[in-house]
Each structure stands twice: as structure tokens, then as C-alpha cells.
């Protein structure tokens, strides 16, 4: 994954919808299929898949736009890489939809990988008394993890204990690169310290 290509494609299709939105449509489409128990039913024809997708695109443009904006805000790097996957798309709407389904699968895989890492981090750190909160944020190919501590002055004993846990996680997850930071109690508001788009994954 270290040779993952990052791109900022801004290509559009004739109906003026940008590529990231197409990807969101396919994610939404997958959710829709789950909701109608599509995967538990008999095998459907590809033509049926395409017609349902196109119908969704027609019906839900505003909703899709808002979700796209949220995704761009929260996961810009992943979204850009996924967008590149869709740059092979043609101007044909049906082909675009099918291609974006593939892209959505990649995106979902990355999202699931992050969730798995975050769950492991929380399960390791939650029992350490001095850990008050944990945030994560993406930077390039790093997943930055900010661990807030109830520590007024630097405590080497505590830090070595935390680093033991971090080491296990670093060994377990080679990709993306995990970048831990430990913040003592030096702030008035935690949110001042993390990136505005950082996710709170644990709090006491």
C-alpha cells in the first residue's frame, strides 16, 4: 500500500456531477441493496442492478451531495485515492456506475481497516487509568493517534507502560503507519489541540 497513488482528479460527466459524488452513489447503492435484502435473495440480473442504481441517482441528488461533502471533509486522502480508481471511467453513465461500485469496495475496505485499528487501540488503552480520551486523524499515509493523559508532569513510568501497548499495535498493524502522540494535561479544551476533523474514538 505504500505505493498507493494519490490523485486529485476533478473530471466531470455530462450531468455536472463530480467523480467523488459518483463514488458516494455507489456506497449509498450498496446500503440500499442491503436494506432490501438483495444479497439474500435469488441472483439478480446485471441489468436490474444498473436500473436500480440509475433510479437512485435520479431520486436522491441532494442527499448524495451532502454525504459527499461529509466524506470529503472527513476522509480527503482516501477519497482522492479512490477517485483515481474511478478516473478510468468512461462518459457512459452505466459504466461509470459499475466502476464506482468497484471503487466503493476499495473505499469500504480502507474504512473497515481503520475501524479495526481503532477498536484495537481502544481495547488496549481503555484500562489505563490516566488515559482520558483518544482521537484519530489521517495525514498522508499515517493514521495519527492522539492519546490524552491525565498527567500534570512528564511521567516516564507511565510512558513506558503506554509504549509497551503501542509497540504491540505497531507490530500488529504495519499499514497504514500508526503515529501516536501522548498529550499531558496542559490544555483547557481538548478540541483545541486536535485537527477539526479528528474523530473521538474513546473518552472517559
Amino acid at each position, binding site marked *: 500500500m*505504500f*505505493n*498507493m*497513488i*494519490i490523485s486529485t482528479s476533478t473530471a466531470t460527466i455530462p450531468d455536472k456531477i463530480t467523480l467523488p459524488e459518483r463514488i458516494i452513489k455507489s456506497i449509498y447503492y450498496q446500503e440500499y441493496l442491503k436494506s432490501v435484502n438483495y444479497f439474500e435473495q435469488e441472483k439478480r440480473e446485471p441489468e436490474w442492478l444498473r436500473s436500480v442504481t440509475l433510479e437512485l441517482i435520479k431520486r436522491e441528488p441532494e442527499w448524495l451531495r451532502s454525504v459527499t461533502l461529509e466524506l470529503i471533509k472527513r476522509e480527503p486522502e482516501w477519497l482522492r485515492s479512490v477517485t483515481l480508481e474511478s478516473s478510468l471511467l468512461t462518459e457512459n453513465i452505466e459504466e461509470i456506475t459499475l466502476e464506482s461500485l468497484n471503487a466503493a469496495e476499495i473505499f469500504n475496505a480502507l474504512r473497515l481497516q481503520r475501524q479495526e485499528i481503532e477498536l484495537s487501540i481502544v481495547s488496549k488503552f481503555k484500562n489505563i487509568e490516566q488515559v482520558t480520551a483518544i482521537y484519530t486523524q489521517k*495525514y*498522508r*499515509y*499515517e493514521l495519527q493517534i*492522539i492519546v490524552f493523559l491525565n498527567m500534570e*508532569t*512528564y511521567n*516516564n513510568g507511565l*510512558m*513506558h507502560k503506554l*509504549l*509497551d501497548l*503501542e*509497540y504491540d499495535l*505497531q*507490530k500488529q498493524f504495519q499499514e497504514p*503507519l500508526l*503515529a501516536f*502522540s*501522548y*498529550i*499531558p*494535561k*496542559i*490544555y*483547557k*479544551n481538548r*478540541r*483545541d*489541540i*486536535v*485537527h*477539526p476533523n479528528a474523530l473521538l474514538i474513546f473518552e472517559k
Partner: protein
Amino acid sequence: MGDFAVHVSQAKHNESLAEFLLDKPYFDWSITACFYSAIHYVEARLFIEFVESDKKHSETSIPVDDKGEWLVTPHRWRERLIQNHFSKSVWKSFRNIKEASELARYLSYFPNKQASFKDVPSFKLFEFENAQFSLDIDLENIKRDLRIELCEFLYSLEMEKTDPIRANLIINKILSNFSTKEEVLQLGKTSFKKQQYLNKEELIFLKQHLENKGLSLSSDTDKT
């Protein structure tokens, strides 16, 4: 970036500053000097690990995207190399010094310009014991586990001036099996052969360079 000797020389210079500042007391700056010492000790050992490649310094091996831009930050990449090439103990001590020194310098990094901190300057986070821990526990741990003294001894034999490839092979074999100069000299050539640490040619090569410096393996000394 420099070779092994240059890195060690810079590491020792920074370590001396850390010791000097500990007595003043500038505990925060002592920890920072410790960190810059640790970086050079690590880079010295990475130089030996990668001496035959074109990536003798950690920053020359950082993964890049298709535009040649770094995918990860240099400090984080160095930590990954330490994790992959050295012991957990080295990694943990290095990480601890780095965390402390970054807090001492930056209170970490804060993207929000309106950040509201307590009215406490960063140096107040650290006491004498913290700086002493960085210097006497963590940095010593790094030096010991990286076998810096043994590396220095082996480089002092100047084997690489005669045959750099063979010299590097011998140095890496010795570093994999011995911790100190004394262990190497005490074991003697008989043990070397018996344990198959070095082959016959390598042993002769090492012995010649020891003799050039007025040294010999213990079994050679015993005979005389």
C-alpha cells in the same frame, strides 16, 4: 549525511550537551539534546545495516507517492526502521525520549491557532528525574542495545579501507553474536572457528587488522 564515525561523533557531542544542561538545570533542553544524540546513534547503526545499499540514512528510504512526495513523516519512518531492525527496548527508549523532547519543544503540534492552554510553560512539565531518566536510562539503553562501543571498536580497525565488502560482512557477523569488544577478544580464534562465527579467510582478515592496532585474540596471546 555522514558515515558511521560522523554520526557517532555528533551523537557524543549532543550527549555531552545533555549532561552539561542537566546540571544547570535546563531539564527540557537536556532532554532535547538527548533526543538529537539518540537520532545520531540510531543513524550510525542504520548506516551499518544499509552500508551496501543506497539507503544509508533513514530519510533516503521514506516511501513516496507518484509525485515523489513523502507518504509519511521522516521521524515516523525512522521509528518504523528502528522497530524493524532493532530490539523493542531500543524502540521504546527512543520513542520515550522523542515524546518528551517534542513536548518540551512544541507541546506537540496544534493546528488550531486559537488553542487555549493552561498558563504553564513547557519546561515546567519536566523535572530533574525526567532528564536524568532520558540520559541515564533511555539513552544508555539505546547505546547498549545498538552495541555502539563494539561498533566503534570494529570501525577503529579500519577493515573497510582494505576491503569494504568483507569488512561489512565481518562487522555484521560480530554484531549479531557479540555484545562487547572484550567478548570478542576473550573468545579467541579457536572459539571463533568452533562456533563458525567467521570463516577462515574472514578470521585471518580480522586478525591482521587487530595486529595492525597492536591487538590479538585471546588464544593468540595465550600462546606467547
